[in-house]
């Protein structure tokens, strides 16, 4: 296989490679593998569609004013029709419009929770995995304590102790969520730090910080990407659950969980009030899970805890 060369003639080689070409090549390969994986392509399209709809909500929804405290008592409880695809609710608001705006809150929940918990968990995981001994013990045992608290219960506790708002719910979930990332990254770091390229950096004299962020972190990237994608779905589910219990999104703001909870009072006759928000949650979480599974296959991630 490598019977060739090893050293190439310096003069003879006319091929010039630039950093831009190497970068394009790397991106190109990743995109090629992504394209060939129908699962990740389907999941990616679903997630992308929802994100676009949520961002462009005021422009793509038929009744943007219905997202707030709007009332139109002449058209309450209308069944799905051409003008109201998902029907209308008890004060005459368009359910389709409110579902799309509800996606905004759900996605914001995922972004905020993961944005807070991932960097924190990753940093602690890197430190715990790299410096074994007492530091590792302290970090990992603390993690275990937090792991014992289900995020939903933690959020319930915080939100029922104070006035429930979606911001507090996000903080509560984030305060638990970092543990999963910490454990994942600590495990990967522990196995990577024995690799010879880490020892090579030590032999050169690189600082611990440089080794952690330049050598180890990039090697965690694939696993982290998969984990974050799969997590986004779960965080949204937890957020919807909190809203359903009345501890997340407060009316009149549109939240998918809140809508389901209010609609449930009118089951089974006014079924569209619960079914469409539920399907919306289902669609988004399925999208994230398919994307995550596809990424996992594509990037060949084999780490425990995903």
């Amino acid at each position: 296989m490598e019977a060739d060369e090893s050293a190439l003639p310096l003069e003879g080689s006319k091929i010039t490679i630039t950093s831009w070409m190497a970068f394009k090549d790397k991106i190109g390969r990743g995109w090629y593998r992504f394209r060939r994986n129908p699962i990740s392509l389907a999941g990616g399209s679903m997630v992308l569609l929802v994100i676009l709809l949520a961002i462009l909500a005021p422009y793509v929804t038929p009744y943007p004013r219905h997202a707030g405290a709007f009332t139109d008592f002449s058209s309450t409880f209308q069944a799905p029709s051409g003008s109201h695809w998902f029907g209308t609710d008890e004060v005459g608001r368009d359910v389709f419009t409110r579902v799309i705006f509800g996606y905004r809150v759900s996605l914001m929940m995922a972004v905020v929770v993961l944005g807070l918990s991932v960097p924190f968990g990753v940093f602690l995981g890197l430190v715990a995995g790299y410096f074994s001994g007492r530091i590792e013990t302290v970090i990992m045992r603390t993690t275990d304590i937090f792991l014992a608290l289900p995020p939903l219960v933690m959020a319930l506790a915080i939100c029922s102790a104070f006035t429930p708002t979606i911001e507090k719910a996000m903080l509560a979930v984030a305060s638990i969520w970092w543990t999963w990332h910490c454990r994942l990254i600590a495990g990967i770091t522990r196995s990577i730090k024995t690799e010879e390229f880490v020892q090579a950096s030590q032999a050169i004299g690189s600082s611990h910080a440089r080794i952690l962020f330049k050598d180890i972190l990039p090697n965690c990237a694939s696993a982290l990407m998969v984990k974050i994608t799969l997590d986004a779905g779960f965080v949204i589910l937890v957020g919807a659950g909190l809203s359903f219990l009345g501890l997340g999104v407060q009316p009149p703001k549109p939240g998918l969980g809140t809508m389901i909870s209010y609609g449930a009072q009118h089951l089974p006759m006014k079924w569209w009030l619960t079914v469409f928000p539920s399907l919306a949650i289902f669609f988004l979480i399925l999208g994230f899970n398919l994307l995550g599974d596809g990424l996992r296959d594509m990037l060949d991630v084999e780490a425990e805890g995903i």
Partner: protein
Amino acid sequence: MSDPLLVVKDLVKRFPIRAGIFHRKVAEVKAVEAVSFDIRGGEIFSLVGESGSGKSTVGKTLLGIYRPTDGTIRFKGKDVTTLTKENARFFKKEAQMVFQDPKSSLNPRRSIKSTLEETLIVHKIARNGRERERMVGGLLEMVELPPNYMYKYPSMLSGGQRQRVAIARALALDPSFIVLDEPTSALDVSVQAKIIRLLRRLQAKRQMAYLFISHDLSLMRTMASRTAVMYLGRIYELAPTEELFTNPLYPYTKTLISAVPVVSEEERRMKPEKQSLGGEIPSPINPPGGCAFHPRCSLVERVCSEQLPDLVEVKPGHFVRCHGVTNA
């Protein structure tokens, strides 16, 4: 004879095996036990032994990758046993390492440029990015690779090319001493020869000293000026290479040399009678008492299992640790 570049005295490295929630030490892997030797400037000193004999651990402990359990390491007269901020800066510029398998010694997520730049950045060698890039190109030329390979990733290179990159990394600070940890054993035979030629050329040009860790005895015979034979963490024989090959004294050395394949009739006549060893190398967690080789030795006496023989200079420069030799 010049002053030795590197003096290692009674180097010990034990890896604790910890278990339980309190990380209690339950056992130790005695990887290196009281190893002493010295290396002169510009010399190729080789360390041979089978897998698990602790030779790689010696190399890695010398460079501070592992913290020595005991013993002293002096480099150019300075104590570098434990690296502090000041002596680490000095020592890491002077002493570098090439690892066994370039597949694992190059970070797959870093471009060749990023890997080679690391040294220049850490030691603040270059003033700016453009100068660094020029220096990285120069390093690649030194190991006979086209400079534009710096934009590639390790996965795009062959095994031999990767090992050249690893050598370039070691050369970046113009060291006077390089530990070569079986630098060719992960490569194809045809590529091995090219890497060896490159290493020889570089050594001749820059007057570097090599600690060449290997189990390829015939290669060491052509390269090294002195050779030490390790078994279960200890040096059992140390001699000028030619002396070691023509007049091996320790039974284990004899067995190793008898196992080297020969090509010419002349070589065959000089070679000791073929012997083969029964069994495996014992566990370094619980090594045999006395001379560690006694369970596999053909000349074993009672004293061998009871008392560790001393490393004795039997001829100028030829040291051996064996009751059978020193008592006879």
